[in-house]
């Protein structure tokens, strides 16, 4: 595992400092929240699905480290406008690829927390956070 400052690339820090789609979402049809019991990182997702089963709007709230919050921000940009079925099919690899940084096992949990919350919001049971 090559851990270095690569974890804190420009793009990650940018999403962390300037989160996209952060805040409440009036009229959300699906909501979920989870926290990482080991460290307390928290992500809440609000999702609005439109008539043609698309994710019309998505917002997140949360607190935690750069990795968990940047990954939540990036995830919202990823799924906004996505057909529900695609979002349901979203796996950890896709998310990690978009993050594009080396991660240790503990930090992996930070990175995947928002995906886990998305699955909860969509009523899926898959445990992706480990």
């Amino acid at each position: 595992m090559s851990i270095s400052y690569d974890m804190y690339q420009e793009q990650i820090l940018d999403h962390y400092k300037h989160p996209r789609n952060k805040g409440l979402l009036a009229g959300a049809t699906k909501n979920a929240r989870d926290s990482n019991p080991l460290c307390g990182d928290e992500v809440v997702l609000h999702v609005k699905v439109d008539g043609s089963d698309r994710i019309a709007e998505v917002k997140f709230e949360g607190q935690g480290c750069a990795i968990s919050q940047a990954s939540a921000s990036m995830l919202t940009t990823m799924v906004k406008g996505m057909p529900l079925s695609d979002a349901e099919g979203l796996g950890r690899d896709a998310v990690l690829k978009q993050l594009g940084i080396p991660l240790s096992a503990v930090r992996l949990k930070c990175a995947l927390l928002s995906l886990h919350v998305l699955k909860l919001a969509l009523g899926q049971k898959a445990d992706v956070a480990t």
Partner: protein
Amino acid sequence: MAKPAKVMLNVPAIKADFPILQRTIRDKRLVYLDSAATSQKPKQVIDATSDFYSRYNANVHRAIYELGEESTREYEGAREKIAAFIQAKSPTEIAFTKSTTESLNLVAYGYGLKGKIQKGDEIVGTVMEHHSNHVPWHFVKDHKGAVLKYVDVKDDGTLRMEQYDDLLTDRTKIVTVSLCSNVLGTINPVKEIAKRAHEVGAICVVDAAQAAPHMPIDVQDLDADFLAFSGHKMLGPTGIGVLYGKQELFEATEPLLGGGEMIREVHLGSAKWNDVPYKFEGGTPNIAGAIGLGVAVDYLTKIGMEAVRGHEMEITEYALEKLARLKGVQTYGPKDVKKRAGVVSFTIDGAHPHDIASILDVEGICVRSGHHCAQPLMERFNLPATARASFYIYNDMDDADALVAGIKKVQEVFA
């Protein structure tokens, strides 16, 4: 289990792995015949522990730094090895405890006292259980009003299975039984016992302290609901035990120890538990112990548990035959080695078991004497105590011969 074809392990090679077996006792070769109490440890296990402390000691799970990553990886790796060793469906069905005793108490408190058991619910045990599978259930009786019932043991050392059928009712909620007796060596028909328990809607708790070290275990085939064993009896360190539980039962079980690691959230006066199995691992666990047990499992797996079992059957058969030829010596438990493990309890006319052990000690032979933490069983057989020799992978026919020679010395002293 059919008796495997004559298999004897390469004992000299195995002995070479165990530093303590190079030791002499008062100038005599150490003949260690007390593995049922605790086994000796190969250098692989000893070194794994030292290596942990010397290279990557750190607390598990919450550390972000490299050392913590390494210790967590090894600790969780041990969990995976143990899951595979007993054919659990998933590592999440394995909780680390400090001993079989803690594992059984965890079930008694978490599923019984603090859990599902109500006044009048029935718990069926057996007369041959170790105290660790008796006393925790007393707690459930005393605090919840559960009713305890016991399956008796026949003179040949096997359970009275007809009686078991009679004891089961629709109030039976838990059946608890040892897979192998630590006094008689009897291997109990746990698969059958679990099946009948399930038929009346009860769960089956298995004490595998004497089984896990000595024979292959397949929790799915047994259909055990909980299963407990200790590291120190299977080449592993002291202070580490295992509780297997079916996922859905683990989820339905309350934790025993409250504290760090086992929670998701704590507030003043309330808390939410972490996921299984972590909710059962409150406090800093025995990290070195778990890692050492993982290496012990590697060692046993490399030999193969079928081969371990076959080896012990050979020695046990040999020892039982030799002992049967000695006048004034009685052995207990099934005569057929297919039905028993390598735990051989015996008595000698006119010599108390403590005196047997003392005199064997003079000869460098380690056996246990006493009630073996199984007083109800001793009462059943009307024995104040027995001497007990038990065999493991590092024992061979020479050790059995040494035992027989030692017994003759005892008889001379008390002639």
